């Protein structure tokens, strides 16, 4: 199971600064089990965002958000509600946020930090998409993770090894993650994000908190994995 925690409400509101309408997306899979993005948390988030003066244009809970094809078919039915929103708040792991961002041409804010994927890649197979860094930065990068997409895991844009959208490491097969991010942000009208200066990654956050590792839920996870 992928374990996530909710970002502090302060950070969620900061990401949505200047926006009014928001569409909330929850996940009935691991995020529900984590208590971070199930139906109950979506309902709670609606109240809190309304209190903060946001307009909720709609909400949905999907089984599961890491299934990109499913996310697309479910969201298509809510096209109008999504169109009315300035952004989507996606309450799940980094994989689910990336799957959602890949199928809607809208800003997708991550509501959670992914603490551990337990080795899972979710239903969106193919490659590692979430580095379980514990401090999700998908808001800054338009829903594409630089830790998994950039060979060097850079946080401030492409290095000099980027050429024609390809990475100096395996240019035949590997895209430059930062050019993908640049193109996505450009499409979203958010190129200003590339002027921001993110804090250097806090590597200590990549280790799930000790409190979590002493829970019976964690112990069960470990047993399943072996």
């Amino acid at each position: 199971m992928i374990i996530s925690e909710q970002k502090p409400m302060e950070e969620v509101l900061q990401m949505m600064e200047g926006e009014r309408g928001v569409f909330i997306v929850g996940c009935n899979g691991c995020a529900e089990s984590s208590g971070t993005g199930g139906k109950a948390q979506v309902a709670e988030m609606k109240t809190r965002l309304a209190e903060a003066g946001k307009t909720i244009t709609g909400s949905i809970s999907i089984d599961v958000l890491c299934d990109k094809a499913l996310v697309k078919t479910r969201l298509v039915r809510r096209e109008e509600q999504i169109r009315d929103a300035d952004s989507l708040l996606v309450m799940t792991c980094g994989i689910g946020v990336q799957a959602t961002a890949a199928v809607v041409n809208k800003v997708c804010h991550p509501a959670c930090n992914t603490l551990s994927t337990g080795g899972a890649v979710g239903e969106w197979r193919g490659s590692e998409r979430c580095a379980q860094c514990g401090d999700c930065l998908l808001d800054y990068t338009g829903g594409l993770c630089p830790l998994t997409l950039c060979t060097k895991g850079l946080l401030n844009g492409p290095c000099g090894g980027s050429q024609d959208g390809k990475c100096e490491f395996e240019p035949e097969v590997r895209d430059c993650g930062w050019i993908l991010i640049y193109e996505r942000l450009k499409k979203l009208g958010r190129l200003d994000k590339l002027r921001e200066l993110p804090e250097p990654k806090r590597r200590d956050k990549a280790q799930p908190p000790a409190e979590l590792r002493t829970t019976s839920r964690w112990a069960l996870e470990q047993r399943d994995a072996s």
Partner: protein
Amino acid sequence: MKVSELFESGKFVVSSEIGPPKGVDVTGMMEDAELLKDRVDAINITDQQSSVMRLGSLAACKLLKDRGIEPIFQVTCRDRNRIALQSDLLNAAAFGIENVLCLTGDYVSLGDHPDAMPVFDLDSVSLLQAASKLMEGRDMSGAELIGTPNFCLGAVVTPCTEPMEPQVLKMEKKVKVGAKFIQTQAVYDPKTFENFMSQIKHLDVPVMLGIVMLKSAGMARFMNKNVAGVHVPDTLIDEMDKAEKRSDKSIEITVRLINEMKDMCQGVHLMPIGWEKKVPAVLDAAGL
């Protein structure tokens, strides 16, 4: 002497690059450095260039400094985490090294230890931030330093890459967090360089045009194929191909490129890659 002081005095600044040897015999390196000493304003010492393991930049910079030659200490993020990087910056300051060029670094697969662990704990921008913070008397964790280093920080940019905009945006960040001069990746096309310089004219920072001296047509083709952000036009490759004496032609082309582009920038950075002894001839012919 900080290179920023030279730019402030209005000087067209010239630097050249030396790669330390693979091993501990520094005779050749020091010969090259002595030869360039009175001809260039500063000498860049590369940091495990192309991810090939060799004598370190810090030791080579110290050797130059001891002989009164001004080094530019190149630091990449490939091989060290933030503890080692900050410590090496302090080491440099303790040796009296003032000019520091902060780079991301090539990926390990490009070099002779492709099986090594790539680090990239920081990147070029956060390394510049860390160095700037050290200059304010604090380390990245906020702890106070006993004695504060005083650097002139530099950064690099690749002008001839597509798309150009993300490179420009990243360069903006580098200037914002403390880069006082910029050295470019090799440029062979004055038109592209002119375009690039117009894209960054809002940035108040001196730019040094980078040129890798072409040693042969084969080398140019190799760079086109394997070095991101470097494009040698076919016309120059043809010229090298037909040249009777390659080194003379190389010097001629380098001088021509300098002459075509020197009015667009504030300095030139030569990367002779083994042809350090030919740099004086280039500078003579270019009137520098």
